[in-house]
């Protein structure tokens, strides 16, 4: 079956300020089904954020192509919403105007005005419409940022460690919120994370990546049903399996260096 989102032999090289070429992604093939929750996991330098930026269209691959719905990705568009670790709310706009930004630039605000309040409620920010980002907590800002990305009904939501800066408690709440939104809006979500637990809790498919060379090491299908129990034996087994893959790759690396 042909995937909804496809990475075909995608390579990405960056040139540093010193003129060195750094290989950020060395040949990735990946297929993602519509409606899947996919987590990209791995240590820093494994190319997971690069993959997300390429899919968003913020960078272009050095080699290979990415397709979404059989259309080649060339530039950013509202069909792929993006949420960063930093909420990146526009500080000069209040929460209401931040969330309606996408509708306004697409000239849809007139006909879909009532969506704004709906999405504000969806992420639990009712009553904070007139607040400015600096007046809200990190978790609230991240939820506003999520609403801002969701309101345009993207086909895929790309999440680059969106919960990384939150405390453990807020983080667990947000994870449940993400699952709820995904179910309600029926969208494909692709999330970059450092946290193995988070990946096993959320994903239908976990893409484990390793650095030097930055590539996909293993793809794990998670067969657990939602909602998931963090103490389920299968949950624990999957977590240790992923840790082993990551750890193993790390050890191999050390050997390589000593030679």
């Amino acid at each position, binding site marked *: 079956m042909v995937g909804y989102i496809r990475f075909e032999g995608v390579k990405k090289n960056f040139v540093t300020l010193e003129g060195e070429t750094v290989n950020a992604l060395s040949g990735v093939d990946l297929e993602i089904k519509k409606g899947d929750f996919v987590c990209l996991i791995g240590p820093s330098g494994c190319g997971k954020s690069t993959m997300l930026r390429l899919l968003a269209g913020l960078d272009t691959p050095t080699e290979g192509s990415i397709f979404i719905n059989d259309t080649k990705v060339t530039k950013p568009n509202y069909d792929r919403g993006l949420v960063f670790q930093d909420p990146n709310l526009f500080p*000069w706009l209040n929460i209401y105007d931040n969330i309606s930004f996408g509708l306004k*630039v697409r000239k849809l605000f007139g006909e879909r005005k009532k969506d704004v309040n709906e999405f504000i409620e969806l992420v639990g920010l009712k009553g904070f419409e007139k607040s400015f980002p600096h007046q809200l907590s990190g978790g609230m800002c991240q939820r506003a940022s999520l609403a801002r990305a969701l309101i345009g009904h993207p086909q895929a939501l790309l999440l680059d460690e969106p919960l990384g800066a939150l405390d453990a408690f807020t983080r667990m709440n947000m994870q449940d919120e993400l699952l709820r939104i995904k179910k309600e809006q029926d969208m494909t979500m692709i999330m970059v994370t450092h946290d193995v637990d988070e990946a096993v809790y959320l994903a239908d498919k976990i893409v484990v990546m390793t650095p030097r060379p930055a590539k996909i090491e293993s793809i794990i299908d998670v067969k657990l049903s939602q909602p998931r129990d963090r103490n389920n034996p299968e949950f624990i087994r999957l977590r240790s399996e992923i840790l082993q893959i990551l750890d193993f790759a790390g050890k191999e690396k050390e050997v390589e260096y000593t030679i």
Partner: protein
Amino acid sequence: MNKLKALLPLISAAAAEIVALAVPDSSLHQKSAHPYFAYLIAIVTVVYYIAAILYAHSVKKSGKVPDNPPFYRATFVAGAVLFFNLLNLVTVKLALLPTLYFPSLDRVFGALVEDRELILKCIGFSLSLLIKGVLGGLILGFSMGIAVGFSKTAAYWMNPIIRFLGPIPSTAWIPVLLVLFSKASSASAFIIGISVWFPTTVLTSSGISNVKNSYFEVSSTLGAKGIHKIFKIGVPAAMPSIFLGLFNGICGSFVALMTAEMIGAKYGIGWYVNWQKDMMAYSNVYAGLIVIAVLFYLIITLLFKVRDKVLGWQKGVIKW
């Protein structure tokens, strides 16, 4: 204690009135047609108490904790009145200072009243010159700043020009401008324009280049196109820096205005001060300086009011 504080301006004003009306003037000073200083003190006192009582009333009514308690400025007003009282004493009453350069306060404030027609005409001329120059400089500075901030080609061609011509003090252009422009008023507007243009351009473009790239990236994933990125992301994000440029530019424009009015203007408040100095009419010089201070204070206050409105989203904005 608070009651006493509230009464301080009244006491100070009474003392000033007694000195002004009961102590005889020195014969070395020119007579003034009216005791303008005594009038002014009376007006200031009445206005102060009306304002303070209204403020105290509104504080009581709203029940909110006010920024400042009622009669917060009482000590200051009393002190200021005392200062002018002493000044009145050492000038017109005792003639301890050179009478030519330190005229009586009656005549200084009298000049504002008796010469009001000419002064108003001068204010009109200065304001129209200032508005022409500032608007011109602002539009040019703003558009160049945006161009340089967003376009590499524009930066390539314009940056050297901005860096080379910008630092020249605007008044140094006078000899060239007198040749280029047939009308002195156009030359004057140009000087003011240059002094506004430079800081506005530099701080607009640097403000735009310092905008977090992720704001642009986020906006493009939300469907923003080029024009949105300029006017919905770049410009609002750079606003704090743009206002800094505007503030510098406006302050520079005051200097430029005063200088510009000395190169062959027929009217204008800078011209007025200069002309009165040449006539050795120092009471009118001081009157002119008071007008300048009030005028520029109002302009800067207006600028800050606009800024507070536009930059309300910022944390901890500097208060004027």
